[in-house]
């Protein structure tokens, strides 16, 4: 399969796949910065108990509103609780809610989008109008409305946020499937007698992974932000859960006593959201050109990437 190549070009045999991959990752700043940020938070979430000696919920009234110091890296709050520990454990909450809500939105949304695209016609119109109905609400407002009518725990908060995402995943999946359905390999699969489900799953599915992954990452950022917002409003997980949003809500009543208590949770939220946003943007750029077949042997006319 090797042929003589224009000078300066490396054929697939000369350089390993992984080297090329690594180079592409490095070139994508969004991916790198976002990835590092996200990894840091993942690390914090997993190893929280080992990174601090304080119990995040332990009150110590002798050390209220402490400034950041060697004892308390980020100071303490109005109950004397160590802020750094609370931030660490708060990472877990953000991730838990984030993962569950994104999964809910993704699984349901992807199914709806695929069904709408594959069966088309009336089902498509019906499902998409329902999705539009959901999209008619500003996102945070919908989450608030849903949570308002339910008791608040990890499950309900995640569901409330997850529902907000369903139409977005549905739309993305639907477009991706529609594009693929026009390709001949779908007809070929039908000609063999393959069932609709299997076609969706095996043939079309893999081509839809990229846009869904990009959306999932971006949506995760939004989930973290929304969870913080809900907690801030008092609609998130109940105390004493150290949700970052709740920490901010509690801290703002004591602004004159300590500005630090309001500072760190906000930084945490911002960095986490920023990290996922960058990661999502990075994925989008990274996955896109690859799909047009950079290593495609057939399209010999196209020079370079």
């Amino acid at each position, binding site marked *: 399969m090797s042929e003589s190549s224009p000078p300066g070009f490396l054929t697939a045999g000369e350089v390993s796949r992984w080297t090329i991959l690594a180079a592409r990752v490095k070139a994508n700043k969004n991916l790198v910065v976002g990835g590092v940020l996200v990894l840091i938070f993942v690390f914090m979430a997993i190893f929280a108990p080992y990174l601090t000696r304080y119990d995040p919920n332990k009150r110590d009234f002798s050390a209220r509103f402490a400034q950041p110091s060697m004892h308390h890296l980020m100071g303490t709050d109005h109950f004397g609780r160590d802020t750094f520990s609370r931030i660490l454990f708060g990472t877990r909450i953000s991730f838990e809610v984030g993962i569950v809500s994104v999964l809910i939105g993704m699984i349901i949304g992807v199914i709806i989008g695929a069904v709408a695209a594959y069966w088309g016609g009336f089902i498509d119109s019906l499902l998409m109008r329902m999705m539009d109905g959901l999209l008619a609400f500003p996102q945070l407002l919908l989450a608030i409305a849903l949570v308002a009518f339910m008791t608040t725990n990890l499950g309900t908060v995640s569901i409330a946020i997850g529902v907000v995402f369903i139409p977005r995943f549905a739309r993305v999946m639907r477009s991706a499937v529609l594009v693929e359905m026009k390709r001949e390999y779908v*007809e*070929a699969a039908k000609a063999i*007698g393959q069932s609709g489900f299997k076609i969706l799953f095996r043939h079309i599915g893999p081509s839809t992974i990229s846009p869904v992954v990009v959306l999932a990452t971006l949506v995760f950022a939004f989930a973290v932000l929304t969870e913080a917002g809900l907690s801030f409003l008092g609609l998130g997980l109940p105390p004493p859960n150290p949700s970052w949003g709740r920490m901010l809500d509690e801290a703002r009543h004591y602004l004159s006593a300590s500005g630090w208590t309001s500072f760190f949770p906000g930084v945490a939220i911002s960095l986490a959201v920023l990290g996922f946003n960058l990661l999502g943007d990075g994925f989008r750029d990274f996955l896109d050109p690859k799909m047009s077949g950079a290593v495609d042997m057939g399209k010999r006319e196209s020079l370079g990437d």
Partner: protein
Amino acid sequence: MEPLLRVDHLKKYFPLARGPLTAKHGQVHAVDDVSFTINPGETLGLVGESGCGKTTVGRCLLRLIEPTAGQIRFEGTEIAGLSRMAMKGLRRNMQIIFQDPFGSLPPRMRLRTILTEPQEVHGVGSPPERMEAAMAMLQKVGLSSEHMHRYPHEFSGGQRQRIAIARALMLHPKLVIADEPVSALDVSIRAQILNLMVRLQAEMGLSYLFISHDLSLVKYMSDRIGVMYLGRIVELAGREELYRRPLHPYTEALLSAILEPKIQPKRKGLYLGGEVPSPIAPPSGCHFHPRCPCRAPDCEEIRPELRDAGGGHWVACHPR
């Protein structure tokens, strides 16, 4: 001998609706009453310009597109009304090769899955047996079986078409519809693929419906040839017969467009003016009459049916 495939009065009209609240209606008469047969082991070529409906005919035979009307009988069994389950069983006998080697293979599936899938769908053999069959077929089409783990995009166009052929043959069909199988390939590769198809036909006892706009390719591959114009077959004859004695003016025009390296001019050139009319509002009577140099008054009113001109030669043209 009972024909393998028998098509009677096949029609496919596509509605032109643009939405529930439009005034404009109309239909694209893609296939407008087409009839032909294919015998076991033979190749029927279907030739015509783009838009004449030949591709639609191919799709209708496999019910990838549902016919509007007409009968399609495969080995005596009527296809058009079959349920999905029954149709699935029949699919083992009829397969298709598409024009685009890049689009007809699933981009994210490895070769081994692509080739074992047909048998898997129909529950043929055990997984190891399927793999063996796939490897054997891959070699049959001229590719090494060590490529099994690769993805389609790692192959060239010609190789991909071989893979597509292999896939189509995994179930040992009796009839293979080849829809412009080499039109998207480099000219130098075409001969290879066509010869492969001929060889496989002999080895596996296949029948082909060879669809193409290229008359020289059709001549090379086919035993009999049907010429289509605007959704209708205007002439149907054996290969040699069609070339020696074209009866329909359209066929004559097509033939004279082929440049042949011959010294003495074999036939008078017949050059057509105008363009192919739109299949939405085809001309009345004989579709070809506006461009026909031998037009008679009847031609505008009455649609000519395929009539027997002797020796298996059929033509849809009023006697001149």
